């Protein structure tokens, strides 16, 4: 039987196993919305801004490792989605974003609500498609899901002109698809695995540096096994948090610009760095000239282009993190040798000295609320077991430093693009994926206002997200840089005319709380988290002058951190 393009679209998503999509309607996608209306298998979540739809889909994907799906209309719908798409691209999030397009006959005519979506998104997608014929629709959707979710994951945009959704074709959805031009590597090259194991066994001052690839590649348990087997210290990138249990004594904390002293010093003085699913981002390496001067580097990554891009590596291993870690374990098992225990003991002693600096220490205060204290208390109140999303700024760094993630897929933030406005909509996606679990969004008064309209979406779907607003009345991260590097000239970083967040939350139909005293932090959090079926917006008035420490200033090496 022939189906319309819109019906085919819906059938494809059903056959792909999609349960939830996030979207916003408009002229070009009305046929699709009509087809969605006539079925019950796929739930459509109506957001309040297309950026929110894409971030929600990201939250869904980042907390499940399943592909997130968003649907938006042509023109402004598509352009509003671009920030989310770019965000997903930077953080390798598997997404398929469907955009409506003007009818094929009008393409190129500056038609109403026409933009060149394929052109605009090209630099920030893994791949994109314009479907010109309804006969190609199902196959294109299959390819889109396949490309988005395999290899190094990423967003794929499928642009569908309106007439294609009305035209008819036979429906056929293939189970699998093969592309001659796209064959991601799975397992690592055996010779490289052996060379890597040689280095592992010979190391005297090793450190494991692991990133988002471990989380995305379901590699956490294999990583745990390897790290335990070797007794090596391990640090995670911002994206990699949860890839190794943060409460484990071998964990040195996050590395990089606002990472811990011990993690950065260990990197700097290491003789072997084992990078796994991490990409030597400039926020991690600091000044690349001064990076890991004495270390040999092993780099495991599914994306060959990430290897030796910023830093020349000694043993490149291209492959999926999980199977590569398994191969390393097997090879170690066969060799049945141990790294030099004496050397490791000395190395651990040095690390403990660095650790003794207690670099995350902050002065507790009875008068003003320290943002770190809120995150620490949040960690206790949620027993370390919540899904935490974050916006971008100081609060994001405090969250990364003070919430100890023991499990992967629990820490959802915008790392690569650093998108303010990510926190709330991504929390919606997480809550949809995990309706029974606790979801909190750590944010700042600047970031939250970038997608505050999504409070209405939360209301509509009864999402009991807990918003933890660390309100310092400043674009804190900007203020910090202005304090350090612009002699305290606080250009445009003071947040004037803030709304009354309590009333605002209430206006949206939620519970609002203002917390002004350190003594009220814990009771307020307990009260909020006890309200299982309500969104609670907690507005914590925090210390306006607090800075994120420690810090590697721009141009410095990892051993040149500013401590408090």
């Amino acid at each position, binding site marked *: 039987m022939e189906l319309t393009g819109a019906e085919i679209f819906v059938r494809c998503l059903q056959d792909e196993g999609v349960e939830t999509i996030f979207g916003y309607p408009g002229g070009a996608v009305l046929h699709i919305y009509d087809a969605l209306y006539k079925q019950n298998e796929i739930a459509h979540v109506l957001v309040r801004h297309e950026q929110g739809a894409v971030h929600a889909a990201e939250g869904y994907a980042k907390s499940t490792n399943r592909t997130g799906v968003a649907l938006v209309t042509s023109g402004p719908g598509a352009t509003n989605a671009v920030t989310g798409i770019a965000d997903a691209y930077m953080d390798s999030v598997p997404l398929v974003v469907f955009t409506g397009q003007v009818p094929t006959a009008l393409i190129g005519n500056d038609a109403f609500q026409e933009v060149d979506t*394929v*052109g605009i998104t*090209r*630099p920030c997608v*893994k*791949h994109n498609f*314009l479907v010109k014929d309804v006969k190609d629709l199902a196959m294109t959707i299959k390819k889109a899901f396949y*490309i988005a979710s395999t290899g190094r994951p990423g967003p794929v945009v499928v642009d569908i002109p309106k007439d294609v959704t009305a035209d008819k074709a036979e429906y056929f959805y293939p189970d699998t698809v093969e*592309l*001659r*031009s*796209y064959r991601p590597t799975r397992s690592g090259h055996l010779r490289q695995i052996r060379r890597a194991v040689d280095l592992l066994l010979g190391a005297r001052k090793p450190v494991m540096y692991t990133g988002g690839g471990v989380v995305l590649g379901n590699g956490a348990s294999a990583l745990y096994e390897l790290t335990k087997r070797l007794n090596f210290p391990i640090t995670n990138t911002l994206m990699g948090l949860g890839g190794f249990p943060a409460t484990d004594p071998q964990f040195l904390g996050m590395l990089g610009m606002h990472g811990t002293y011990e993690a950065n010093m260990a990197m700097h003085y290491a003789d072997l760095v084992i990078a796994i699913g991490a990409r030597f981002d400039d926020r991690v390496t600091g000044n690349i000239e001064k990076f890991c001067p004495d270390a040999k580097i092993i780099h495991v990554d599914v*994306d*060959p*282009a990430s290897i*030796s*891009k910023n830093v*020349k590596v000694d043993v490149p291993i291209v492959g999926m993190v999980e199977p590569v870690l398994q191969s390393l374990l097997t090879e170690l098992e066969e060799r049945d040798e141990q790294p030099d225990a004496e050397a490791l003991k000395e190395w651990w002693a040095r690390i403990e000295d660095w650790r003794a600096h207690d670099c995350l220490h902050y002065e507790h205060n009875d008068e003003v609320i320290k943002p770190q204290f809120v995150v620490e208390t949040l960690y206790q109140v949620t027993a370390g077991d919540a899904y935490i999303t974050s916006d971008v700024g100081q609060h994001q760094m405090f969250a990364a430093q003070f919430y100890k993630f023991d499990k992967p897929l629990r820490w959802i933030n915008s790392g690569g693009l650093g998108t303010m406005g990510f926190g709330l909509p991504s929390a919606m996606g997480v809550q949809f994926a995990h309706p029974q679990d606790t979801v909190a969004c750590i944010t700042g008064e600047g970031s939250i206002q970038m997608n505050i309209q999504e409070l209405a979406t939360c209301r509509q779907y009864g999402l009991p997200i807990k918003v933890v607003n660390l309100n310092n009345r400043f674009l804190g991260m900007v203020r910090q840089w202005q304090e350090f590097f612009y002699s305290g000239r606080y250009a445009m970083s003071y947040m004037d005319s803030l709304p009354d967040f309590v009333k605002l939350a209430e206006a949206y139909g939620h519970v609002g709380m203002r917390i002004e005293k350190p003594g009220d932090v814990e009771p307020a959090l307990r009260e909020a988290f006890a309200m299982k079926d309500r969104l609670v917006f907690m507005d914590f008035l925090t210390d306006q002058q607090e800075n994120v420490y420690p810090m590697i200033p721009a141009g410095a090496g990892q051993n040149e951190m500013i401590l408090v």
Partner: protein
Amino acid sequence: MRHIISILMENEAGALSRVAGLFSARGYNIESLSVAPTDDPSLSRMTLVTRGSQEIVEQITKQLNKLIDVVKLLDLTEHKHIERGMVLVKVQADNSNRDHIKHMSDIFRAQIIDVTRTAYTIELTGTGQKLDAFLDALSPVPIIEVVRSGSMGIASGEVSLKI
């Protein structure tokens, strides 16, 4: 160093802009580019000439390989290869210089492919150097216009870029 990269890619709308976009987004330079469908109409073949250090060219080939439309590529510079480009040059021809034009064309094995009362159009293929040398050798004949193709390349003998 100069590198000649041969690329086989899906003959899809937009494939060329993905390559061009990659070069501008990542700040690589393109010295020349030529592209056309192959004997298999589902594939296009592109020859791209670029300059960069070993590390940069390695990144370029990795990034190109990462494009979903790129099926396969070969850095011809790593193999024995043949490179050709083509030039069409229109010159002012009058009684005083026709012999010189003909003479130079013969020496370079170029062909005069269009003749009018006032102009000759000459066609020549060869390496970039040979084309440059020919244009030099034409002087003092006034050149009206020059059209050059990008380079095309093919590896010699056993090595080939095919699927």
